[in-house]
């Protein structure tokens, strides 16, 4: 049965070291919604996103996915989300295709070479599919990392500074991809210091202070 997916954060408090970053944070994110987390450097944006992934255990409060704590969902929650952090999680020694196939493999499904090529071309990496990622620029590496979003069928995208190192064209492409994902019933929560407008979607703002 197709469930209505929803991410709920209830009264969340997180610490980094002994520093209290935020407390009493509550919000809901439903299918088709886009949320931008804002705040100064060090206000806990990354920590919040890592808490949503389950890397960091909150001091107080909980994170619910479709009404159930993400700790209880176990792997089934992770199967429905895709996280892209500051680090690209790609290997310099491997080609873009191999990187995409490996990361899809680790996430539990296999991607054929032709599918991988289609996705990479969409990300603007035509004729660079077989090159070792080592020789690509920072922005192109980021594109390889972002192409992971397009394989698999995760509902929730958690993106930490997805636009780092991307040029204007790629930022436009990201807006388009996020728009498509939202209209397919997905949801996105992200941080960025650049403006990101998705046509036809109201970006909800969450300010951390």
């Amino acid at each position: 049965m197709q469930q209505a997916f929803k991410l709920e954060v209830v009264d969340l408090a997180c610490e980094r070291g002994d520093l209290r970053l935020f407390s009493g944070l509550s919000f809901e994110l439903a299918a088709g919604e886009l949320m931008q987390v804002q705040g100064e450097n060090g206000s806990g944006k990354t920590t919040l996103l890592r808490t949503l992934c389950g890397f960091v255990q909150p001091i107080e409060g909980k994170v619910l996915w479709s009404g159930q704590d993400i700790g209880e969902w176990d792997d089934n929650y992770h199967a429905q989300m895709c996280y892209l952090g500051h680090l690209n999680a790609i290997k310099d020694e491997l080609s873009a295709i191999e990187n995409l196939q490996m990361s899809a493999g680790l996430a539990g499904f296999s991607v054929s070479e032709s599918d991988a090529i289609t996705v990479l071309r969409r990300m603007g990496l035509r004729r660079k599919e077989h090159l070792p990622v080592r020789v690509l620029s920072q922005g192109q590496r980021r594109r390889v990392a972002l192409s992971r979003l397009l394989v698999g069928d995760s509902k929730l995208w958690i993106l930490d500074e997805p636009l780092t190192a991307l040029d204007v064209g790629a930022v436009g492409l990201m807006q388009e991809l996020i728009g498509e994902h939202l209209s397919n019933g997905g949801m996105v929560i992200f941080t960025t210091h650049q403006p990101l407008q998705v046509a036809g979607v109201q970006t909800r703002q969450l300010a951390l202070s």
Partner: protein
Amino acid sequence: MNKLSLFGLLGLVIRRDLLLAMRRRADVLTTLIFFVMVVSLFPLGVGPEPDMLRKMAAGVLWVAALLASMLSLPRMFSADYLDGTLEQMMLAPQSLTMMVLGKIIAHWMLSGLPLVLIAPVLGLQFDMSVQALWVLMLALLLGTPVLSMIGAIGAALTLGLRGGGVLVSLLVLPLCIPVLIFGAGAVEAVNSGMDAISNLSLLGAFLLFALVFTPFVAAQALRISME
């Protein structure tokens, strides 16, 4: 989308690590060359006294193998940690324990197996008998995977720490002493005309025990390191 089975996942992780190592061969060769060097230094330093060399052969080879495997331990998880792949592995809706087991097996194939294969050649420098060489190989074959497995826990615990490389040796070496004792003991037993089977059985028992517990423990250690 085709879901991978547990063994499919295991195979994928091993294939991936071997592929990465093939594209970066220097790392594999350093371990092997270190082992060859350390072992070869002993006959040069101690002098060409066949009796003495025969006596110390097993001990020297085992200690060198132990040190060589320490050399490559910090690399087991650090590259994946630094480029963010480890984060993705933890988020994967798959058994982290199985992925860790895959990484351990790949690590052994790259740092343990070459030592097993080259050991008989080095043993000749010490005038070891043919029978002793066979037992040495068998003992290394059983013992070196245990070193990789125990080492994986140490490598996972010291991940991201400054000076983790030295720390992991301090942490892991004491735990490897039983493997050293029974591994060297097996060759010793053959030299003194006894049966090596009891020593080898104990090494086999260590191997099975480590195979069951260490991947799980190392996976938990990784989770702690990632917080």
